[in-house]
């Protein structure tokens, strides 16, 4: 994680000039995006600025009309979310996307269950519950998520704990990036803090995180850089340590020109 120097951080994910139009409506108007290894990048923008359209475009949920997407410097074309998942990108959704009557292990492995080796797995499709429980316990342990038992049904958990399960799921399977779409929107203050802690632990475990959020205090608490989205494109990227919440809100709403704040793009800096 610390192998890259300050001068040339490794760009994990990069998008150039993404465009998506629906008839006369332009949802994405030439948006750029970049994510650097080991960082938490917040994506902020007003309602209707098109940030979720852009996120959908880089997670395969929608296919852009124009533009390029690179993962680890390699050009990729995502036709659906599964393609992005195969490329090692996992997404946590705002609506608690967990199955309430399944237990924690079953949720972590939903759609990716391990089957027993040999006859039992191939013919009778028996699940290797033991191996899954072991791995689930390890994942929860690595992220410092404390629960009574990984056999606990998700419906017995609080909202924050449920979202923690969703984050753990993403962190378990992501090989390159974890994207979180307003993961704290449905949570109370204490639970929000717990999830923010968890996001930092995901980063500490070596995965870069994209955090889409409306909430400035949240963003300034955890993010390294902030991608500010406005009118369908990236207005600018700033370093959290070099700016203030009011400046970010200013750029977000158009009250402040983007060049009024110090720009922290990596790719553009390398180009010039």
């Amino acid at each position: 994680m610390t192998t890259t120097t300050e001068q040339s951080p490794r760009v994990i994910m990069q998008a150039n000039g993404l465009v998506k139009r629906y008839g006369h409506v332009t949802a994405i108007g030439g948006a750029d995006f970049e994510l650097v290894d080991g960082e938490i990048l917040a994506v902020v923008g007003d309602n209707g600025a098109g940030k979720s359209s852009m996120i959908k475009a880089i997670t395969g949920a929608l296919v852009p009309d124009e533009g390029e997407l690179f993962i680890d410097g390699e050009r990729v074309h995502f036709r659906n979310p599964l393609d992005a998942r195969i490329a090692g990108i996992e997404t946590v959704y705002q609506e608690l996307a967990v199955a309430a009557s399944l237990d924690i292990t079953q949720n972590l492995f939903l759609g990716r269950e391990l089957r027993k080796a040999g006859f039992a797995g191939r013919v009778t499709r028996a699940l290797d519950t033991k191996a899954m429980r072991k791995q689930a316990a390890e994942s929860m342990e690595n992220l410092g998520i404390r629960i009574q038992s990984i056999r606990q049904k998700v419906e017995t958990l609080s909202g924050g704990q449920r979202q923690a399960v969703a984050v753990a799921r993403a962190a378990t399977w992501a090989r390159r990036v974890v994207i979180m779409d307003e993961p704290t929107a449905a949570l109370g203050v204490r639970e929000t803090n717990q999830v923010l802690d968890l996001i930092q632990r995901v980063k500490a475990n070596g995965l870069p995180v994209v955090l889409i959020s409306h909430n400035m205090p949240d963003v300034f608490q955890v993010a390294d850089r902030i991608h500010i989205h406005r009118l369908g494109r990236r207005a600018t990227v700033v370093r959290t340590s070099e700016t203030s919440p009011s400046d970010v809100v200013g750029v977000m709403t158009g009250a402040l020109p983007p060049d009024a704040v110090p720009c922290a793009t990596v790719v553009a800096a390398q180009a010039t």
Partner: protein
Amino acid sequence: MSEAATKEREPRIGGPLVAAGVDGRPRPRRAGELVRTFFSYQAAGPLVALVLAIAVFSVTTDTFLNGQNLSLILQQTVVVGTLAIGQTLIILTSGIDLSIAAIMVIGTVVMGRIALDGNWALALLVGGVVCVALGAVNGLIISRLNLPPFIVTLGALTALTAAAQLFTSSASYPVSAKGLTILGQGIPVGGTTVLSWGVLVWIVVIAVTSYALSRTAWGAHLYAIGNSETAAKLNGVKVSRVLFGVYVLGGVICAIGAWQALGRTPVADPSAYATANLDSITAVVVGGTSLFGGRGGVLGTILGSLIVTVLANGLVLAGISSLYQQVATGILVVAAVLVDQVMRKRRA
């Protein structure tokens, strides 16, 4: 909860909000909690109801509690009981199949008609294939065109009920081929008591489906879809493939039900089993499976099927009009849904 305990779980995520045992259920502490824990098991309520009904009829009648009558109850349960297993799988996905017995009846008349020409094995095969195909048509419309299962299967019920009459010109075929009626015969287990092959087939269906529900990925996916189709899809579950499969499986179970029905009554009658569509749903609901999907299972459905038959059988033996059985069943259904609603609210 003491202050120390509250403090202790503060810093890290996932402090225990409920004290939970190994399997994730609340750990009982007092007698009241013990009772509550017992009833948090889905099959607990139906089990109590069944034991109560058996106890009452055993005391109030001399003819209820003997091997012969118990074996009769099993045979009376078997056809609807088997359909109810298919219905359980469908309801777990928050679907419903109102046409399940109508498909089965089509199966019986096709089998009966072909068996008239002498080849019972061919009759069984073709009747079975027709059932599976009809289940597949329901499944295709529900999973690919995204129409509500209630509407699709209501249409299927209406059309197939008429189709069965048209196919037979409203006549019924007596079935004499041994291969078709064999599930009505059985192994004597002492005296006049007989365990029919049909009951054994029911047990096999139960064993296979409960294995699939609890030990395979497919089973977990059924529950996940029942909880939330969107969440299941976001997690990479192939929702429409699973949904299609569950209705096809419903068709397979209809085929088995048709074979059992010919064993029970060796006549292929297009007007038979008219109430079995709803009876199968009644058995599932009385068994504690939620009509909203994602909660329940096969064990409850076995109990639910038995409760309905025990009530009918026992009330007849007690010399009470079977209409009261229908009143009692109706009340049970509403009570079961009420219990489910309370449970879901508490867990939400």
